[in-house]
């Protein structure tokens, strides 16, 4: 254990003792280097990240490969941001990629889907308060349109409730959502489950993935009651703003991860004009 710690410490020291600023992260393509001719196809091995000529590895020492170039560049940019110390809590995309590659909790696709759909029973935007009146009004005006949109988009019933038991979700809703989520890949599901656990709402996550809501809007709707209280009682920067920015960062990372992992392969055929 000690030898491993020392080796890790030496690796960081070498990374940290760089002359100009932090480590330089370079994205390089996997096994086959694509030639500069007509068609560009994503390399078979996936994209890897080099930190100062050393390959990036996950915490379980697997080689760090991602399927999408944009994701690899974003991860490399995250590493480039780091200066004197490596702040892992700011590198959300790296963490998500590591989780997808390692799968430390050893969950398969069904377990992930079930974990995500379980949030529907205690979905934030289905839980309503009964008083004060202005908050009830606010919840109705802001949350009802999203519920109606989700119900129409997936052809299910969700509804909202004020009771402590929560909304009564019919089984058919659950089945429809489970089969919809099953169409996503394993990586995208990790991202979806991450976003659901951040926003505490399945419906808001669906809105985010289907491009109905922006990240700022989704976070605002998730924190609706807090924003209401802030407007009434005042904003505490070191708590409210801190949590808001952290939630926004995590949600944005999760949403970007899902979109980049679930897009189809882009093969651009360049027509050369002779």
């Amino acid at each position, binding site marked *: 254990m000690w030898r491993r710690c020392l080796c890790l410490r030496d690796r960081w020291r070498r990374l940290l003792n760089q002359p*100009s*600023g*932090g480590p330089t992260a*370079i*994205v390089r393509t996997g096994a086959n280097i694509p030639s500069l001719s007509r068609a560009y196809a994503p390399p078979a091995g996936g994209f890897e990240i080099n930190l100062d000529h050393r390959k990036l590895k996950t915490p379980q020492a697997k080689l760090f490969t991602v399927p999408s*170039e*944009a994701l690899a*560049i*974003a991860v*490399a*940019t995250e590493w*480039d*941001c780091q*200066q004197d110390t490596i*702040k892992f809590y*700011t590198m*959300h*995309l790296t963490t998500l990629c590591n989780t997808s590659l390692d799968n430390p909790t050893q969950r398969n696709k069904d377990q992930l889907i079930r974990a995500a759909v379980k949030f529907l029973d205690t979905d934030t935007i289905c839980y309503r308060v009964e008083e004060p009146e202005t908050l009830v009004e606010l919840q109705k005006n802001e949350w009802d349109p999203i519920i109606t949109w989700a119900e129409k988009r997936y052809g299910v019933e969700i509804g909202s409730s004020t009771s402590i038991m929560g909304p009564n979700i019919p089984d058919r809703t659950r089945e429809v959502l489970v089969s919809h989520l099953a169409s996503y890949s394993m990586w995208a599901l990790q991202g979806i489950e991450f976003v659901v656990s951040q926003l505490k709402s399945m419906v808001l996550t669906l809105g985010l993935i289907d*491009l*109905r*809501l*922006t*990240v*700022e*809007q989704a976070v605002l709707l998730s924190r609706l009651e807090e924003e209401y209280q802030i407007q009434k009682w005042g904003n505490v*920067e*070191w708590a409210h*703003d*801190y949590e808001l*920015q*952290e939630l*926004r*960062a995590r949600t*944005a*990372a999760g*949403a*970007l991860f899902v*979109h*980049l992992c679930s*897009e189809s392969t882009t093969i651009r055929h360049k027509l050369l004009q002779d």
Partner: protein
Amino acid sequence: MAALGSPARTLRGLLRELRYMNAATGRSYRDTAAYRYLVKAFRAHRVTSEKLCRAQHELHFQAATYLCLLRSVRKHVALHQEFHGKGERSVEESAGLVGLKLPQQPGGKGWEP
């Protein structure tokens, strides 16, 4: 659909975030892979007012999400530095809070090497 604004504004915001990120390191932000990729992608998928293509909207949405990510990470780190970055007080400071001063022991304390 979501209120995203114009792609030009998103691109400007992204370049500004890249500039802030690379201000501390020596390199210019134009050398980064992210800058090159973004500029190439925005140029290739330039949205004109006639095309209402869902794929272009998706790409713009992804760009806006990435902008939100960069912005919120930067603000989060700034807030952390300002409010939560100080760490614990040293022993001298803690003693000074109640008006005490640590003794000067030129020979060192008994248990120190």
